[in-house]
């Protein structure tokens, strides 16, 4: 058994020693009381891949609206609004179905996304005020 293969084979045959029989009860007595139902829907959303994809999609939409002045200039304001709102609603719907959200949770997510969109939009439309008086 001087070869690596021989040593590996022998080691593969060894058995592990087990902890004492009462350890399970001791561990669960100490750990189980710490287990509580503390998850909120926002935890689920935050740690879900669906949420990250949805957030990325919304960011892409927002960036697109900001970065393409020709389109922005030619697209009527209401149409921009409708497009963004439709995208947000679709993402919220997809997220809600992936995470089995209730209607209320889904509405909250959509409202939050819309709030973010409106904030971005306001920021973009507000004129930059020059402290010396001009725009």
């Amino acid at each position, binding site marked *: 058994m001087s070869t690596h293969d021989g040593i590996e084979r022998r080691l593969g045959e060894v058995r592990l020693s087990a902890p004492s029989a009462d350890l399970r009860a001791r561990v669960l007595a100490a750990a*189980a009381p710490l287990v509580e139902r503390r998850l909120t829907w926002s935890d689920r959303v935050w740690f879900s891949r669906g949420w990250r994809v949805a957030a990325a999609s919304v960011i892409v939409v927002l960036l697109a609206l900001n970065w393409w002045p020709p389109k922005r200039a030619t697209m009527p304001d209401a149409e921009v609004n409708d497009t963004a709102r439709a995208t947000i609603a679709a993402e919220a719907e997809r997220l809600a179905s992936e995470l089995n959200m209730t209607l209320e949770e889904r509405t909250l997510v959509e409202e939050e996304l819309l709030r973010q969109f409106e904030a971005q939009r306001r920021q973009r439309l507000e004129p930059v005020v020059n402290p010396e008086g001009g725009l």
Partner: protein
Amino acid sequence: MDLTRDDRRDRDLVRRVADGDRDALGTLYDLHAERLFSHALWLGARRADAEDAVQAAFVKLAGMGADLLAIRKPRPYLHQIVRAAVIDMLRKQASRAEEPLAGAILVNGGAGPDEQLERRDLVRALGTLPVAQREAILLHLVQGITFREIGRIASVSTFTAASRYRLGLERLRRTLISRLSNSRSNLA
């Protein structure tokens, strides 16, 4: 990223724990406690300390709440906690188990007397290895953990974990050869 079936099963159990399911914690214990306990022993902990380290791992897991959802691979995570707990205990005690690996490995009972002796030699030789090399060998060979996961557990690169494994095996081989030649010359 590469999630095995066992990883997915463990992740689901951890999610259930996060959702308040205590039975899921018991299932996780049944699946991993023995391996975690062995890992602690291989690092040089005494049996009682190894059990405390296992308990510490599950207590920590149970108290994490929503943060549990961020764990993609629970098994290496549990090993990490046990490892940190054992290292901490060894530092505080400034002493290790009197004989490394005492009680950590049971020699398989099915073989003949010669093979039994050979395996006992092997276990003794394992005890002479540096802890990091012994850990890499036993986690990989006995527990079937990949080098990538061993790297994660020991906070080193995959390459370093694999190197520790290879160097450990080489050293083990040399130790066994010298033991063999010693016993032959004693017989002669």
